[in-house]
Structures are given as structure tokens and as C-alpha cells.
């Protein structure tokens, strides 16, 4: 059966060159980078090369990169670590309504512990207004955390403007850039970002690796205690093969970012427009054009439910998602779509296609051929669609 993977925002395959490099570090250059001997030194050297590669893609210096076990840990480290370091300065925190669970739940945890949290709303396209952030800042605000690009609807946030604001007010600024990293140009200097989360498995690197950019001079308290690795910011034997793979993936994606983005924008628009042309009662979620991630398509297909769509697509070999990977396992409609003002019914019928480097025009054609049939079948079964057709007939 044909298999078309359109879920790159959930995770990506590891690039073959990256995987081959990792193999060497699993089976031959397997030393512990803390060790004094040659095995240790060669691992350490490669680790530092990876740090340089990651830093370069962010516009940071290698010393500002702390490797973690993934985006979730980096988000937690950024938020809990900052709050632990600055709690004497204030207890007010700011975030947006459309953050990833790793950010949102961490803030909710802190709110329960007694911190005060302002959650900035978004407009119907899923974008935060800078003015709302400005109004939310108080003298006791210690942290602002706003994601760069949303994982569900692909909306790109005005990070540079928020960065300016944060700098003006002397508030630490964290950005979850897991979805934009390697897809959009990022420069932590120009954007005035103090802390930034990135993750390897979204850019054709291995799972279980991420990094937190920590601007020189910004203090965070580590989450875990132990071996003093990563300049005491992240203890535990370093996942050298994973980190080296991440570094290589950064290097590779950095070289072709603009080109790749252009290709994906084309496929994205072909898919989005194709769906709108072929299926009635469809709503695009998120912004159009430049304010949208190059690889994100998100539509709500009314009168049908997301999981049914996913299962039906899957039977035809098409892998997609409904909301974020985490959301699709649960029954709650996406908090992102609700924050954008969608009613529950429509939020339930959301479908995300996220493109990747191997996707082709043919893949899109196949989806556009199959999806209308699937929707038709599911709508025939749906008591909601029923009412619509009856109303239409009555008119």
C-alpha cells in the first residue's frame, strides 16, 4: 500500500546522513564525554561540534546552548528554572492561550503553587496581539513565554515585537520555537529572546533530544541534580549520539531552509485550496500566507469528527493528525482551536496535514482524490449533516 506521511509536526523521520553518523557514535566512538581517555575526548569533541551547529542555526554562541532530552524538558527547564531563580523578584507570569501543553501545563502547575498567571488570548487566526502583552506586563512580571509558531494551526507570532517589549520592561522572555526552528529564520539576538526551546525530532534529527538556548547572563535553576554535565544546568550522561545527530540535522536543514520552505508553501497552498474546492463546509484554521508555517494545513471539516477522518485516511495509507499528537489521543477538542473561537462541533472536525521534505505533488493529488470520498462517506453517516441537507432541501 502507498504510505504518505503528512504528520511532520508530530515527528519526522531521521535523515539518512544523520542516522549514519549516529551509528558511528553508538557502536564505535561510544565514549562518555566526561571521560579523560581518547574515547571520551572524541565524544566530547563531537558534542561540542554539535553545540556549535545548533547555536549557529539560532544566531547564538555555543556556550548558550544546553542540551536536554527534548522540547518538553527544555520548556519545563526554561519556565520552572526561571521562576525558581527569580521568584524573589515577583510572582507574575505571562503566556498565551495557544501554547503547547509542555508550556501551558507548567504554568498551570505554577499557578496552583501560588504564582499569578495571565493567559493572553489570540484572534480568530490564532495570533497574539502585542498590545495585549504590553497591557499584561506588571512591575512584578518575571517571565513572558510565547511560542514562535503554533503546532496545530501554524500561526506565526510577533516574537520580535514581544521581545522588544520584554527587553524594555526587563522581563525574561522565553520562546518555544519547536515548530519554527529549521523552517523560519530565527535570530535570538535580533528578536531579543532570552530563552528558546528547540527539539531535534521535528527537524529530521532523533527523538529524545532538544536544547534550551539560555542567553549569556540569564540564570536558571536546574530541574535535576547529579553529574554536573552541561555546565551544571542539565545533569545526566550526555546522549552524545543523539546530540550529534541533532547537530548534524541543524547543519543540513540550515543549508536548505529557504528553498525547502518555498517548496512546502506551494504544496501547502495546493492542498489547502484543493480541499476548499472539492469539499463544501470546510473552514481553514489559522492564517493564510506569510503568517502561516510553510508546512501546515489545518482545516475543520464540518459534520464529521476528526478521529474518524484520521482512521479513514490511515486505511488509505495517509498519515495525518487532528490537533496536536497529544490531543488526538484524548477526547478534548484542541485548546488552540477553542482559543481561536471555534465552537466545539467544528473543533472536533479539525484535520492537520503537516508537510515534510519527502512530500511530493503526487502525494497531495492522492490526498485530494481520497479525502472528498472519505468526507462524503462519513457525512452520510452523520446525524448533523443530515439536518443540513434537509434544511437545504427545504430552502
Amino acid at each position, binding site marked *: 500500500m502507498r504510505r504518505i506521511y503528512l504528520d511532520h509536526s508530530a515527528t519526522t523521520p531521521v535523515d539518512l546522513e544523520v542516522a549514519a553518523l549516529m551509528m558511528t557514535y553508538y557502536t564505535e566512538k561510544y565514549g562518555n564525554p566526561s571521560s579523560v581517555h581518547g574515547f571520551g575526548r572524541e565524544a566530547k569533541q563531537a558534542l561540542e561540534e554539535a553545540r556549535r551547529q545548533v547555536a549557529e542555526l539560532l544566531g547564538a554562541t555555543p556556550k548558550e546552548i544546553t542540551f536536554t532530552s527534548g522540547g518538553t524538558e527544555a520548556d519545563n527547564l526554561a519556565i520552572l528554572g526561571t521562576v525558581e531563580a527569580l521568584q524573589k523578584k515577583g510572582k507574575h507570569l505571562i503566556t498565551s492561550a495557544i501554547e503547547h501543553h509542555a508550556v501551558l501545563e507548567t504554568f498551570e502547575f505554577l499557578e496552583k503553587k501560588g504564582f499569578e498567571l495571565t493567559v493572553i488570548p489570540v484572534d480568530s487566526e490564532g495570533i497574539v496581539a502585542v498590545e495585549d502583552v504590553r497591557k499584561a506586563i506588571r512591575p512584578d512580571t518575571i517571565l513572558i513565554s510565547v511560542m514562535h509558531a503554533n503546532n496545530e494551526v501554524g500561526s506565526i507570532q510577533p516574537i520580535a515585537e514581544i521581545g522588544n517589549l520584554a527587553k524594555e520592561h526587563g522581563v525574561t522572555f522565553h520562546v518555544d520555537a519547536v515548530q519554527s526552528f529549521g523552517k523560519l529564520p530565527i535570530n535570538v539576538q535580533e528578536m531579543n529572546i532570552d530563552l528558546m526551546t528547540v527539539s531535534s525530532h521535528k527537524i529530521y534529527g532523533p527523538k529524545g533530544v532538544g536544547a534550551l538556548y539560555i542567553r549569556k547572563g540569564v540564570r536558571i535553576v536546574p530541574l535535576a541534580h547529579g553529574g554536573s554535565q552541561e555546565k551544571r544546568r542539565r545533569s545526566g550522561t550526555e546522549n552524545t549520539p543523539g546530540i550529534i545527530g541533532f547537530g548534524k540535522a541543524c547543519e543540513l536543514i540550515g543549508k536548505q531552509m529557504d528553498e525547502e520552505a518555498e517548496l512546502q508553501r506551494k504544496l501547502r497552498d495546493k492542498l489547502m485550496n484543493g480541499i476548499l474546492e472539492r469539499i463544501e463546509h470546510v473552514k481553514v484554521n489559522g492564517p493564510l500566507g506569510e503568517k502561516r508555517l510553510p508546512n501546515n494545513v489545518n482545516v475543520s471539516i464540518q459534520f*464529521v*469528527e476528526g*478521529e*474518524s477522518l484520521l482512521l479513514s485516511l490511515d486505511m488509505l495509507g495517509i498519515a495525518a493528525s487532528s490537533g496536536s499528537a497529544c490531543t488526538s489521543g484524548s477526547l478534548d477538542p484542541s485548546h488552540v482551536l477553542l482559543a481561536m473561537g471555534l465552537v466545539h462541533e467544528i473543533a*472536533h472536525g479539525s484535520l492537520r496535514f503537516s508537510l515534510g521534505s519527502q512530500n511530493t505533488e503526487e502525494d497531495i493529488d492522492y490526498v485530494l482524490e481520497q479525502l472528498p470520498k472519505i468526507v462524503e462517506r462519513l457525512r452520510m*453517516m452523520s*446525524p448533523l449533516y443530515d439536518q443540513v441537507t434537509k434544511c437545504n432541501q427545504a430552502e
Partner: protein
Amino acid sequence: MYTEKVMDHFTNPRNVGELENANGVGEVGNAKCGDIMRIYLDIEGDIIKDVKFKTFGCGAAVATSSMVTEMVKGKTIEEAMVISNASVAEALGGLPETKMHCSNLAADALHKAIGNYRDKQTKKE
């Protein structure tokens, strides 16, 4: 995630549609939770002669709807009333835990349809 039987019922759902001459209709769930099931019954005497369903919902919701229609066709009302959500899930070879409470409502819809039929009968009397 789902058993083969669930996938079979999801892919080839039995008895999808409406019954023009239904004398018992029951609906449960709401779109807010992501699941709506409507069951149509054609009852003659005590016997369920025909049954159809329409469902908006996830794989489990469709499969349980389909399964319950298979289970009741030709049965007496009393037999139908004994069918529970749990027995529908069992007939499907089980459901993922997260789906047990939210999407496994087909038996409830059936019972509601039977209730609707009985109400009508009472009114007629």
C-alpha cells in the same frame, strides 16, 4: 489501538441510515463532546424488525453504533434492554480505556429509542 472487529465495523458499518417508518428514535451525546448517536427502530409487537443508525463521532462511536444494531435486529424489546454499553464493547473485542466512557454510548441510544417507542405506545393507548 482498536481491535480488528472495531475497525471492521468502522470501515463497513452495518445498518447505516434512517428508517422512514421508525416508531422509536433515540439520540444520545452532543457535538460538544464529539459524539452523537441516533438510533431508529422499527418495532412490531415485541420484535425489533429493523434498525438503523446515524453517528457523528470517533471510530469507537461508529463501531459501537454499528455493533449494537447487529445485536438487536430481530430481538425482542426485553432482550434489547439487557444489552449494555459494556456488552457492546465486549462484542467488539474490547475498546481502549479512554473510549469506554465517552464514545461507548450506543446501548444508551438504543434504550432511549425503545423508551421513545414505549412512550408513543402509552400515548396511543
